[in-house]
C-alpha cells in the first residue's frame, strides 16, 4: 500500500496538528493568503501611482498601503513560506526522519502566525501604521500610535514564531538524519536551511530589542530613539538593519535551496559543484551578518564605516556568483524538461542575476548616495524578493505539489501563469530603475508629471501580475481536487522525499530509508527511476544491486 498516497482529512488542517506535513501545508496555504492580501495592497499603491496627483486614496492611507504591503510580504509571506512551509514539509522527508525534532513546538510556531497576521491587518482598521515597513523613528513614534503598537506586537509574535522554527530546523537537520546519511549527502535545501536558521537565531532577537525599545518610546515616553529627549534615531536603524538585512538572506537562502533541488531533477543532471553551493550558503550567512549598515550610507555614518560595509557587501557577490554559475552549469548539457517548475527556476536564475548586479551597484557608496531611498532601490529589492524569492517559491510549489497532494498541477495553466508573471514582473519593475536614477524617490503618493508615462507602464505591469495569479489559483484548487493522479515519484527524482508514497503516510517512511544514491546522482545508474513501481519493490531491487 505504500504507493497509495495517504490523504489527510481536510478538517485536520484546521487543528493543532503536530505532523510536520500538515504544518507545512498549513504554513503554505496561510502565507499564500497573506501574499494575496499583500498583493491587493500593492495594487492599491500602483493604482494611486497611475497618475501623478493624489486621487485614489488619501495620503495617509497611501502610506499605510505600502507600509502594510512591505510588512506582510516579508513577515507573513516570504519568510514563513520559505522557512515555515517548505522547511517543515521537506526537511524530515529529505533526511529520512519521521517528523521534526520538536513537533509540538512546531505546531505552536505555526499557530502564532494567524494571530500575528490578524493583529497586523487589524492595525489597518484601528489606526493605519504609516511609517513604512522600516518604521524609522521619530516618524513611527508620532504617527498613528495605536496602529504602530499593533504593528510592533505583531512583529514580535511573528519573530518569535520564526525563532521557534529555526531551533527546530537546526536540531532536526543535525540530529535526525537517517542512519548513514552524512551532512554531505543531504539535499542542498537542507544546507540552505542550516544557513537561514543560523541567521534567524542570531539576528531576530536584535529586531525584538529594537521594537521593544520603540514601543517604550511610544507607550512610556522614554527617549531611546526620540531626539527631543536626547535619544538617537540612528541607533534604531542599526538595530533594525542588524535583523532586516540578514532577513533578506533568510528570505532568499531557502529559495536557493529549492532551486538547487529543482534544477537537477528537470535537467536530468547532477548539481554542479555540490560542496561549493553548500559552503557558499554558509558564507552568505556569515557575511550577511556584517553588512547591515549599507542601508545607512546617507544616515550620517562615518566615512570609514561606510567603506567597511561597502566592501563586506560587495564580497557577498562572490558566493552568490558561485551559486549562479553552478546552476547555469547544471542545466548546461542536460536534458531540460521545460515544465512549469523548470520555467520558474530558470526565471528565478535570470531575474535574480539582475537583482544581484544592481545589488553590487547599490553597495557602492558614491552611487548609493544618489539612488538610496529611490525607485532604483524599489526595483532592486523586487528583483531580489519577487524575481528571486517568489519565482523560487512558485518553482517549489510546482515541483513538490505532486508530493503534497499525489496530483500534478496542470501544465498549460502553469505555463500561462509563468508567462504572464514573467512579463508582468518585468514590465512592473524594470522601468523603476530608470525612475530612481532620474529622480523619483520611493514612498511618495504624488510625483513629478514627467514620470507619468513610465509609472503607467509599471502600473499596467502590476495589473498583469495580479491577473497572472488567477490561472495559478484555478490550477492549484482544481488540481488538488481533481488533478491528474501520479505515482510516488513522477519526476523520477533521487532525493529521499520521493522514495515514499505521495502524499507520504504519517511518520513518512515505513522503515528508515536506505540511501541508494546521492541526492543528485543523475546519469549514473537507472535502476530506480520507474515511478510506477511500489517503493518496496524499488528498495529490494536496489538492495539486490547494492554496491
Amino acid at each position: 500500500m505504500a504507493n497509495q498516497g495517504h490523504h489527510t482529512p481536510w478538517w485536520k488542517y484546521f487543528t493543532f496538528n503536530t505532523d510536520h506535513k500538515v504544518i507545512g501545508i498549513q504554513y503554505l496555504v496561510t502565507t499564500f493568503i497573506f501574499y494575496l492580501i499583500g498583493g491587493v495592497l500593492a495594487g492599491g499603491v500602483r493604482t494611486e501611482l497611475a497618475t501623478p496627483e493624489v486621487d485614489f486614496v488619501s495620503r495617509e492611507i497611501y502610506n499605510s498601503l505600502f507600509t502594510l504591503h512591505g510588512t506582510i510580504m516579508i513577515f507573513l509571506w516570504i519568510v514563513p513560506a520559505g522557512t515555515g512551509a517548505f522547511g517543515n514539509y521537506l526537511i524530515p522527508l529529505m533526511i529520512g526522519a519521521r517528523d521534526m525534532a520538536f513537533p509540538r513546538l512546531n505546531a505552536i510556531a505555526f499557530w502564532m502566525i494567524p494571530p500575528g497576521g490578524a493583529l497586523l491587518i487589524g492595525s489597518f482598521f484601528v489606526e493605519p501604521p504609516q511609517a513604512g515597513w522600516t518604521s524609522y523613528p521619530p516618524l513611527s513614534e508620532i504617527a498613528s500610535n495605536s496602529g504602530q503598537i499593533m504593528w510592533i506586537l505583531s512583529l514580535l509574535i511573528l519573530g518569535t514564531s520564526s525563532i521557534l522554527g529555526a531551533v527546530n530546523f537546526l536540531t532536526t537537520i543535525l540530529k535526525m538524519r537517517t542512519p548513514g546519511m552524512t551532512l554531505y549527502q543531504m539535499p542542498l535545501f537542507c544546507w540552505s536551511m542550516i544557513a537561514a536558521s543560523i541567521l534567524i537565531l542570531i539576528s531576530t532577537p536584535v529586531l525584538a530589542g529594537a521594537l521593544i525599545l520603540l514601543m517604550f518610546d511610544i507607550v512610556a515616553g522614554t527617549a531611546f530613539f526620540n531626539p527631543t529627549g536626547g535619544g538617537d534615531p540612528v541607533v534604531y536603524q542599526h538595530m533594525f538593519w542588524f535583523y532586516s538585512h540578514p532577513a533578506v538572506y533568510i528570505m532568499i537562502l531557502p529559495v536557493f535551496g529549492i532551486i538547487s533541488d529543482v534544477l537537477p531533477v528537470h535537467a536530468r543532471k547532477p548539481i554542479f559543484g555540490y560542496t561549493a553551493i553548500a559552503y557558499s550558503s554558509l558564507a552568505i550567512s556569515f557575511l550577511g551578518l556584517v553588512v547591515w549598515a549599507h542601508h545607512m550610507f546617507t544616515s550620517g555614518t562615518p566615512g570609514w564605516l561606510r567603506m567597511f560595509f561597502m566592501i563586506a557587501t560587495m564580497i557577498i557577490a562572490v558566493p552568490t556568483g558561485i551559486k549562479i554559475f553552478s546552476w547555469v552549469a547544471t542545466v548546461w548539457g542536460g536534458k531540460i524538461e521545460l515544465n512549469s517548475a523548470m520555467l520558474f527556476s530558470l526565471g528565478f536564475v535570470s531575474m535574480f542575476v539582475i537583482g544581484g548586479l544592481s545589488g553590487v551597484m547599490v553597495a557602492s557608496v558614491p552611487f548609493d548616495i544618489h539612488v538610496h531611498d529611490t525607485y532604483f532601490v524599489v526595483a532592486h529589492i523586487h528583483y531580489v524578493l519577487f524575481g528571486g524569492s517568489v519565482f523560487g517559491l512558485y518553482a517549489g510549489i510546482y515541483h513538490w505539489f505532486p508530493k503534497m497532494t499525489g496530483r500534478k498541477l496542470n501544465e498549460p495553466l502553469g505555463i500561462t501563469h509563468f508567462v504572464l508573471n514573467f512579463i508582468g514582473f518585468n514590465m512592473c519593475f524594470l522601468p523603476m530603475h530608470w525612475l530612481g536614477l532620474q529622480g523619483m524617490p520611493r514612498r511618495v503618493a504624488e510625483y513629478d508629471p514627467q514620470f507619468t508615462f513610465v509609472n503607467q507602464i509599471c502600473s499596467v505591469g502590476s495589473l498583469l501580475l495580479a491577473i497572472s495569479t488567477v490561472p495559478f489559483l484555478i490550477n492549484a484548487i482544481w488540481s488538488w481536487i481533481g488533478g491528474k493522479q501520479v505515482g510516488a515519484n513522477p519526476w523520477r527524482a533521487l532525493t529521499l522525499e520521493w522514495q515514499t508514497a505521495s502524499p507520504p503516510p504519517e511518520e513518512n517512511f515505513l522503515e528508515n530509508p536506505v540511501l541508494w544514491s546521492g541526492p543528485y546522482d543523475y546519469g549514473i545508474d537507472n535502476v530506480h527511476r520507474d515511478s510506477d513501481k511500489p517503493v518496496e519493490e524499488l528498495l529490494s531491487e536496489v538492495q539486490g544491486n547494492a554496491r
Partner: protein
Amino acid sequence: MNIPNSIVTLIAGIVLTLISLWYGQNHGLMPVAASEEAPLVDSLFNAMMTIATGLFILVQGIIVIAIIRFRRRRGDTSDGPPIDGNLSLEIVWTAIPTIMVLAIALYSFEIYNAMGGLDSAASGSGRNNPELAQKPGSAIAAPMPKERDGEDLAAGVGASPGREGSAADVVVDVKGMQYAWIFTYPDSGIVAGELHVPAGKDIKLNITASDVLHAFWIPQFRIKQDAIPGSTNQLRFHPQKIGDYPIICAELCGAYHGVMKTRIIVESPEEFQQWRQERIASSETDNNQLSMLAPSEKTPSDAEYASRYVEEKMGIDQQVLQQLH
C-alpha cells in the same frame, strides 16, 4: 573543443565585450550632471554598468542557449552526462568575480574620496580637530562664514582632498521640517525657502531636521544626506551648471512626503551676490519672517504649501481640510 567552436566562442566574447563597453557609456540613464561630483559618480556608474551588462548578457545568453540546445526530446528518458563539478572552472568563476568586486570597491573608494567622503572633519572626528580651529580661511570672494566645526557636526560628505581643512565659500544651514526646507545663510542672516548658490564655488550645508527624518537630495548633483533631528550632518559640493534643479525629500517623513520639494538655484557669482544684497536689504526693511520664507512664484503648490502648514502646525482637523480640497 574543436576549432570552429572556439572561433564562435571567441567572436561571441568579442561581441559581448563591445556591446558592454558601448552600453556602459551610452545607457543615458542618468539625469543632467550639474555638479563637480556628478561626473565622478557617473563614471563609476558607467564602469559598473559595463561589467553588469557583460555579466547579464553572459548569464542570460547561456540560459537561452541551454534551453534551445539541451531541450529534452520527446520520449527521451535518459539522463544527461554525470558531470558534478570542475575544479578549475569553479576556481575561475570564484576568482574573476572576486577581482571584479575588489576593483569596483577600490574605484568606489577613490571616487568617494574625491567627493570628500573621507574628509576627517566630516567623519565624526571633526569635533576635536585642532587644525580646523586654527586654519584661516583661504582667499575667497564671498565673506567668511562663521565656521561651526567643532560643535556638533556628525558625519556626512566633507571637503574633497585638495580642499581639506579649508573653509567653504558659502555655508548654509539647512533645516528639514514637515514639509519644507528652510535655508539659513549664517553670515548674512538670510532665511529662504529656496537654496541660492553661486556656480563653481565650494558649498557647505549643515543639515539637520526639527521633527522627523528627512533626506536632502539633488538628483542632478548625485548627492544626498539624511536630515536627522538632534544632529547636524555636513554635505559639501560644487555646483557647476547654472540653472534650477529640484531639491527632493528622499526619506519618508509623513503624509505629505511626496510634495516636500523645493529648488536649488545655481547662479553666476555676480547674480548670487546681487540676490544676497537684495535679500539683506529687504530683510532690513521688513522684519516679517514669513515674507522671507515666501516660496517661489513658480511653485504650483503654494496654496497647498500654506494649507499644509495650517494643518500641521495649527492642528486643523484633517477631514475638514480634505473636504476643502
